[in-house]
């Protein structure tokens, strides 16, 4: 009996269940990234506005979100909101809220960086050839910002997928939780399945994130 429980992986529909769990992880990340990109672009533009109040507010938001570990934010939303305001959110919804808040902060900073990196004469040349302010943004600035942002946004996606593993700790049944359930369910028949099951989860995360980060790296190289 030295197979160390690899057969648990293929018993019944265990492997399918793991993949379903992975899909939940990926779905939450995709929703959060999509929302973060939308809000992040607004935040980034807001951060370039020369106004003391917006500057202080956005800076405060950015610093707070970035300094707090994501798990703490999850706890704040999942447990804190329920207790203090009686708002009952499911684990999945609180995860999406937290990751959107976090992603917006990260994305906003990236957008700000991209906006600043575009040199001033781009705006001035645009104005000089008679484009209105909207047109300058529409035809000159935004296309350039987008090409700079794409690899960074993809990088953010892999980080998001990796961080979503934390939601197992607020009780969302995603891939890690499913793995736990499978191991517990087979505790008596196959007591040693943990190595293979957790190994598989490790591998699944890698298989999900690796192609995405390769893509980001290639795009980044192409840009230079």
């Amino acid at each position, binding site marked *: 009996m030295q197979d160390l429980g690899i057969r648990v992986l293929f018993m019944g529909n265990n492997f399918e269940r793991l993949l379903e769990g992975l899909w939940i992880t990926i779905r939450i990340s995709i929703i959060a990234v999509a929302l973060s990109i939308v809000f992040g672009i607004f935040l980034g533009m807001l951060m370039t506005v020369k106004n003391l109040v917006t500057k202080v507010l956005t800076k405060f938001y950015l610093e707070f979100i970035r300094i707090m570990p994501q798990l703490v934010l999850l706890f704040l939303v999942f447990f804190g909101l329920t207790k203090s305001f009686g708002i009952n959110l499911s684990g999945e919804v609180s995860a999406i809220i937290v990751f959107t808040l976090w992603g917006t902060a990260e994305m906003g900073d990236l957008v700000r960086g991209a906006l600043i990196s575009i040199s001033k004469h781009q705006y001035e040349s645009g104005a000089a050839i008679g484009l209105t302010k909207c047109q300058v943004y529409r035809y000159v600035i935004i296309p350039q910002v987008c090409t700079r942002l794409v690899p960074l946004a993809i990088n953010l996606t*892999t980080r998001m997928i990796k961080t979503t*593993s934390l939601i197992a700790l607020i009780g969302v049944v995603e891939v890690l939780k499913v793995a736990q359930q499978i191991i517990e369910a087979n505790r008596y028949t196959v007591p040693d399945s943990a190595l293979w099951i*957790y190994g598989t989860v490790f591998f699944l995360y890698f298989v999900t994130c690796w192609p995405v980060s390769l893509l980001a790296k290639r795009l980044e190289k192409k840009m230079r």
Partner: protein
Amino acid sequence: MDTEFIVEYIPLYIEAAKLTFGIGLIGIVLSLIVGLVITFIQYFKIAVLKQIAGAYIELSRNTPLLVQLFFLYFGLPKAGISISSEGCAIIGLCFLGGSYMAEAFRSGIEAVEKGQEESALALGFTRSQTIGYIILPQALSISIPALCANMIFLIKETSVFSVVALADLMYVAKDLIGLYYKTDEALLLLVIAYLIILFPISILAALLERRLRYAGFGN
């Protein structure tokens, strides 16, 4: 808000913060060492080790720490390798951090002008002298912002250590919520504790970065 409760349990948080900070520090130092070793391996292009280092970087950068810890703490004992909670935490943090530090060093080295290396070689420095005296001192100052960001990232990542049964800040907060249902107070203390640990580091990093930018290295 129950202020008495808060005052009563502050010492518990201080203990937990010490643990978080201690393990975080050990993890950071070890990751720096791992990162440097990998940087050297990649710089000198040592045959087999180079491939291993590349695979390690991809593996550690594309998997979450939580999953790594589950594998180390719950998976490996089934194969006969039992590691204590602290051991798992440190190994996990070092496994994760090593690759991030290596990437930071590498980008620093790449940012040093090619002419520097060539001039050193032309002057008769050996390759190890070149990297030791010429490249690394310049690369280090370039990569310091990235290294600081990694340190903050690693300390933040310590928040998942409660899953390997370490009594860190998260663990204490969860415990207090479970025992006394004092959610607000427990969470408030948690947020403050992390702010106290991370905010000074973040400010220090920003100051350091500004100083380095004034120094205008390489430009």
